[in-house]
């Protein structure tokens, strides 16, 4: 991470606050109209997908229905749920778009998500040992963690995680690695597990029991389509999220860097960490919409509670602030960024000595 003095950090903080304040002062009807339009699009796709699905014995209808339902889940999770739960639309004072009451269409309960994502991940971003989103306790993605034999097959784990992503996210708060190390007891996780079975059960019931049974004669078709829609959502959201922090130049941090000498981290340093630990990818308007604007992960991480559709318009200003302070603004096209993510997963599955001998697998921070 770039070394900056407290004075420089304070200037960085002011520069970014200025951008944030300009957006806050301008929030209003345009943002409300945007999110309502997206909500309407979601409802249309979900209703359309569910209505078409029983007619899926006609192959093109099956494809259309599965795609519509998959897209509806992607839009609901990425552009509506994730962003609403960040409090991006709390100012609208609309109970159906409120961060503390919104419940989204995935196995993870909103409450668990707000604890593990909004609080842990966004506060301790990329601090090894503190940000459990870094590798999801399954993958070794930097040499901060010592290599173990089990890491050699982690590419398979990655594919499994992506395929069943909603369940992985749902179980994230179980802290399986800490249970394994006996730092916590299973008993302390019982309330969480209860919540997980309630919410996860509800999601499974809806897609894999209720709607198939509702149209019994074609139940297998509806079941297959619903599984397909969930799979599409799982693969896409996992891919987008991996591109946010695991690309080649996305940095990791140590607790010492952030809280050395027992002092608390300044807001300026927190900003610096968000800028250095996140990465964007470029794409069309639709790519940004379907990624919930996490294609602007850098902007999202400095301003997690600004309406996400604002990120494209402030990205030039954020980049200018980065340039001014000599901070790398990490962006690139989707294929390049995702390619470096895959390379990182592959590279760190190998022991460090072996990895060093393969220049093709050289990944950013491998120091």
């Amino acid at each position, binding site marked *: 991470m770039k070394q900056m003095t407290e004075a420089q950090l304070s200037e960085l903080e002011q520069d970014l606050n200025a951008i944030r*304040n300009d957006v*806050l002062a301008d*929030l*209003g*009807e*345009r*943002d*409300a*109209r945007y999110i*309502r339009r997206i*909500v*309407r699009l979601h*409802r*249309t796709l979900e*209703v359309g997908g569910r209505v078409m699905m029983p007619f899926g014995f006609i192959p093109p209808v099956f494809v259309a229905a599965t795609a519509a339902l998959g897209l509806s889940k992607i839009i609901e999770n990425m552009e509506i749920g994730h962003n609403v*739960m*960040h*409090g991006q639309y*709390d*100012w*609208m*004072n*609309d*109970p*159906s778009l*409120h*961060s*503390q009451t919104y*419940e*989204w*269409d995935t196995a993870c309960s909103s409450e668990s998500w*707000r*604890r593990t994502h*909004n*609080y842990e991940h*966004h*506060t301790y971003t990329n601090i090894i040992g503190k940000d459990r989103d870094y590798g999801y306790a399954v993958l070794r993605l930097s040499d901060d963690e010592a290599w173990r034999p089990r890491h050699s097959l982690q590419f398979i784990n990655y594919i499994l995680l992506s395929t069943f992503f909603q369940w992985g996210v749902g179980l994230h708060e179980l802290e399986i690695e800490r249970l394994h190390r006996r730092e916590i007891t299973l008993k302390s996780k019982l309330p969480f597990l209860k919540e997980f079975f309630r919410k996860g059960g*509800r999601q499974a*019931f*809806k897609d894999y029991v*209720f709607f198939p049974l509702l149209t019994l004669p074609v139940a297998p078709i509806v079941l297959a389509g619903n599984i397909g829609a969930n799979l599409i959502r799982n693969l896409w959201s996992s891919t987008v999220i991996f591109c946010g922090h695991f690309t080649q130049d996305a940095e990791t941090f140590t607790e010492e860097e952030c809280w050395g000498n027992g002092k608390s981290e300044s*807001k300026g340093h927190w900003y610096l960490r968000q800028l250095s630990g996140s990465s964007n990818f470029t794409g069309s308007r639709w790519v940004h919409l379907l990624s919930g604007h996490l294609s602007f992960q850098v902007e999202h991480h400095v301003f*997690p*509670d600004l309406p996400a559709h604002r990120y494209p318009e402030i990205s030039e200003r954020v980049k200018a602030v980065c340039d001014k302070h000599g901070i790398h603004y990490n962006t690139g096209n989707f294929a390049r960024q995702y390619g470096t993510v895959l390379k990182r997963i592959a590279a760190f599955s190998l022991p460090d000595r072996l990895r060093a001998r393969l220049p093709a697998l050289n990944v950013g921070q491998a120091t």
Partner: protein
Amino acid sequence: MLALQKHRAPLQWLGRQLFNRDDGVAFFDPLLERINPMWVQEYTPARVQRIIRDTADTRTFVLKPARRWQGFAAGQHVNICVEIDGVRHQRTFSLSSSTTLWHEQGLVTLTIKRLPGGRVTNWLHDQLKAGAVVGLSEAFGDFLLPEPIRPILFIAGGSGITPILSQLKTMAVQGFRAPVTLLYFVRDHDHAIAGEHLENLAASHDLLSVKVITTQGSSEPRYLTDADLGAITDLRSRDVYLCGPQGLMTLAGELLDARGVEREKIHSTYFAAPQTDLCSQDLGGKVRFARSNLDVDSTGDAPLLEIAEAAGLTPQHGCRMGICHQCSCRKTSGTVVNRLTGQASGPGEDTIQLCISIPQGPVALDI
């Protein structure tokens, strides 16, 4: 009501399973609203039929609520919900029409005075047009006529006449069965709301007498006097209804007390003219944690999260720096200042972040 809830329990269950919300039908609101705004399920919609100019700064809005609205008793209030520049605002107003108008024509009226600097009342006067749809709560309030009817003295000031108008109009339809006197204090005759209507009512009903008193008519302000009460026949046998500015209410209370009118016979309702958004920086004030039934004082040097914790509460929270929205909660009344932006909130119901909100005067929270 209980039967209704029982009937709804399975629906609520299904709503949670399929749409992750208790009000499952409201899931379709974004689509229903486009077809017909009166079909919205989340709140009771009411269409503005007509807008009548009463005085220079007062208008009467004739509303047609959706049929499922449950009606009201004369003297009750409703909350109306309007969206201004993307933000939903709720304000309480008294219904000013007779209950007969609702029963026979399905209409209700709100008589609303423009408050200087008031965001909602000015918007209602300037922007709301016939044909638009607003949200309406069920009616509430216990400023109700005696059952069976007894002799009454009404004392009203300014726009405090509105609930009394509803009561007089309702009694007029049913025929007055006991003497009723109205003392109505207004700045000058141009400011008398429904002045002509009141005179007509008095002219056609022997048991009703109306006295409109102008406070600014001469060089000396003319307020309620003991002589005004002395002129009322059988004062002590009457139920007294007070509605108006704080000064009038206090004065009336004292004078009635001196005349030996029993406290139980005095009914009053405050139309608390909301403190307009003037932002003098005098911070601190009494904080009410409604759900915990706890009141504490604050001096303005700490945000609400710390005040709550100092009082022994453990509200949900996360980053303590305004990022993660874990501590967002409902403020039911009062003004808070955001310590990051220095901006004051509105006085009404609102979502705030506890960790960065400092009370400015008394504040009530739903925690």
